[in-house]
């Protein structure tokens, strides 16, 4: 399919000169995007690049079946453009973001309101969608929640216990990360990247350093790529285990809940064994890795990993063996495969709807070109399916690690990195534990960042949570929410 596209093609973690990205007048650009999305492409990112007073729209599309990415842009424009959203709902948040950041109006957008713009001390949430009727009641939850979690506001329209509609308003954690990157990279940039979403430090840091390497026209040594892949899977193990424990906790199933909390710590400690930090901060460096995994420590890691995996398998088996748990998970918070494709879900949430969508498989880069694990797919789209995908990914990440730790590649740990090429665009996709992390960088004529766009998987998936709640009992919101476990700060940037 990608062979016939007018867009410029590149592979994951590749770069191309800005001049080679085809530019169309905005109406033609939107039509071209619509055509490609209509025949199976997926919208990874859509953003504006300021050009004096005007703005150029840039779209990054993914042809998953062809392992190819496609980039196109509009000529500089002001005012308005025809909205993609009515035909391709996966564009809806991107268009709201463009409207908010660049003042361009997507004409025909059905629900144009701020994404994370602040008014005073809180986000400008705008009007919420309301269902009318005497039987309807509205429940507002957040931004301050009962647990120690991030802030976000949820507005439910309910008829009794049944949720008719959920609208999610975020932006409370907006820190201005993208704005801070203009003119970069700076010395602090890597630290900021590791905290875009703190539980996905490895994924975001890998995407960032991969971009720097692509912009410099080089690649990290294989040994560093291997270490990054190991750290990424450890991150996945820790988070999936923690989330399954949290799911068990939310249905008051104590055996799994109390065990998984401890096991998550075991996996985090393995990351600490690798680099001294439980979240993997400080491991990844542009051009390579800061820490090595000597044979002795690799052996120690394997020795600790295997019992932790066995214990995790047991804790999860209790979950599946308990009929009271299965009856809580099955059929709750369903997202249909067609809906998932339409709103562009990514990561385990998409794979739990039966979509085969995994960057490690579709767009392999780095070490994943040499070592792969099977894509985990489960049909159903309910809480059960999402929990199931998580548990299968724990198995497969465990097998991947066990296989990789015994045969490390030889070689250097780090190369010196050249400065970024001027006027170049690079794209990096990384499959974090939550899904596709997409970073796009465009350099100016001095080789500094002109625009840096981060798309966390949460940006795609929050709409999925809202859809999952339709027709579900409001008391099931916590388990639906936990089964997605999306990032607030990754969305708010």
């Amino acid at each position, binding site marked *: 399919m990608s062979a016939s596209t007018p867009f410029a093609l590149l592979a994951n973690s590749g770069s191309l000169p800005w001049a080679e990205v085809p530019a169309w007048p905005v109406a033609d650009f939107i039509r071209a995007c619509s055509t490609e999305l209509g025949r199976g492409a997926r919208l990874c990112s859509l953003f504006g690049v300021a050009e004096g007073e005007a703005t150029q729209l840039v779209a990054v599309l993914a042809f998953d079946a062809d392992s190819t990415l496609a980039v196109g842009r509009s000529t500089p424009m002001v005012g308005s453009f025809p909205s993609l959203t009515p035909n391709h709902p996966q564009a809806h948040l991107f268009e709201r973001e463009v409207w908010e950041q660049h003042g361009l109006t997507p004409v025909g957008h059905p629900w144009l309101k701020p994404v994370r713009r602040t008014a005073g001390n809180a986000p400008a949430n705008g009007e919420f969608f309301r269902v009318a009727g005497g039987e309807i*009641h509205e*429940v507002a939850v957040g931004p301050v929640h009962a647990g120690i979690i991030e802030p976000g506001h949820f507005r439910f329209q309910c008829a009794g216990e049944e949720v008719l509609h959920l609208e999610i308003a975020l932006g409370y954690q907006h820190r201005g990360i993208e704005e801070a990157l203009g003119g970069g990279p700076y010395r602090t940039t890597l630290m900021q990247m590791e905290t875009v979403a703190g539980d996905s430090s490895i994924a975001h840091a890998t995407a960032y350093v991969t971009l720097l390497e692509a912009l410099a026209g080089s690649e990290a040594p294989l040994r560093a790529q291997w270490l990054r892949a190991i750290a990424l899977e450890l991150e996945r193990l820790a988070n999936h285990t923690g989330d399954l424990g949290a799911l068990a906790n939310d249905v*008051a199933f*104590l055996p799994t809940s*109390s065990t998984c909390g401890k096991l998550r710590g075991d996996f985090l400690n393995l990351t600490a064994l690798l680099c001294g930090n439980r979240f993997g901060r400080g491991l990844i460096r542009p051009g390579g890795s800061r820490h090595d995994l000597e044979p002795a420590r690799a052996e120690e890691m394997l020795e600790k990993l295997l019992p932790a995996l066995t214990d995790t398998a047991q804790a999860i088996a209790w979950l599946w063996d*308990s009929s009271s748990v299965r*009856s809580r998970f099955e059929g709750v918070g369903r997202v249909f495969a067609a809906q998932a494709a339409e709103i562009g879900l990514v990561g385990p949430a998409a794979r739990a709807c039966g979509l085969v969508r995994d960057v490690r498989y579709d767009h392999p880069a780095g070490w994943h070109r040499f070592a792969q694990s099977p894509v985990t797919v489960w049909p159903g789209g309910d809480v059960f399916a999402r929990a199931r995908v998580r548990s299968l990914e724990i198995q497969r990440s465990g097998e991947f690690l066990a296989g990789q730790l015994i045969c490390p590649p030889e070689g250097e740990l780090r190369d010196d990195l050249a400065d970024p090429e001027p006027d170049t665009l690079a794209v990096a996709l990384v499959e974090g534990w939550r899904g596709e992390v997409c970073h796009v960088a465009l350099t100016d004529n001095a080789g500094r960042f002109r625009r840096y766009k981060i798309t966390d998987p949460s940006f795609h998936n929050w709409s999925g949570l809202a859809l999952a709640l339709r027709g579900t009992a409001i008391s*099931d*919101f*916590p388990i639906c929410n936990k089964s997605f476990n999306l990032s607030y700060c990754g969305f708010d940037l």
Partner: protein
Amino acid sequence: MNSILDLILRLDCWLLLAPLLPGIINKVKAWVAGRRGPPVLQLYYDLARLWKKGVVMSTLASPAFVILPAVTWVALLSAAMLMPLGPLGAGLTFRGDALLWLYLLALGRFCTAWAAMETGSAFEGMGTVREVSYAVLAEAALIAAVLTLSVQSGSISWVTMLGPPMGAGAALLAAGLFIVLLSENCRVPFDDPNTHLELTMIHEAMVLDHSGPPLAAILHGASMKLLLFTVLLVQAVLPMSQLKPLAAGAVLACGVLGVTVAVGLVESLLARFAFRRVPLLLTTAFLLCLFALLVAWKGGLA
């Protein structure tokens, strides 16, 4: 003089022992999960702490917000006075005290629900709706259980009703009353006393806005209610009237402990039910008590 001493002892027994039960349940849960868990006396510490704290009042709430928890507490304590304690008998007994007992429990629930509506919070309204919906079914089961005891003893006074040992219906009644106990005291699988998620709460959502001494009254009242149902379950099922007073007291104490541990085990091993399945379980409890009633009634004729 003797009756005053008896009353004081009896009050001490209910007031001081009740907070022990939640502590035992939590200890059992911690033990099953392999944790150390909070001290058994944790609720006593909590009550002491809450007693020293001030009350935060919503500007929307009327004084009823503070008064109603006290009314609930008094209603529950009065119900406890009507309940016989093995060889000790009841603090107060008259013909029809079992009926008053049922109404006192209903009064307690009514006052808690009213207090919950005082602040106008969406969560508390939601919790109240759930609480009273499930109470309708739980009360039906409880009334059927009381009728069973009444029919087989030919009395409507607790002291005689709990006297004769149950026949074949004992097992049915035990199962039915145990489910009612779990439901009325907001335990798993009906409610999750440990959850912090307002959207899934039933009882906890109703008392979210209470603080200080009224909250202490609510928590203490809840523990008394748990003890009340445990004592009822044990006495309705175990034949104790033929035993010597000391032995009967020991059986009662062991029975209460056993039921408490059973509640802890249920909470450790079972996930909580979805709300839509709760009515099914409560109807089951009602049917169990109803069949116990049939056994008591027809068994008496044969």
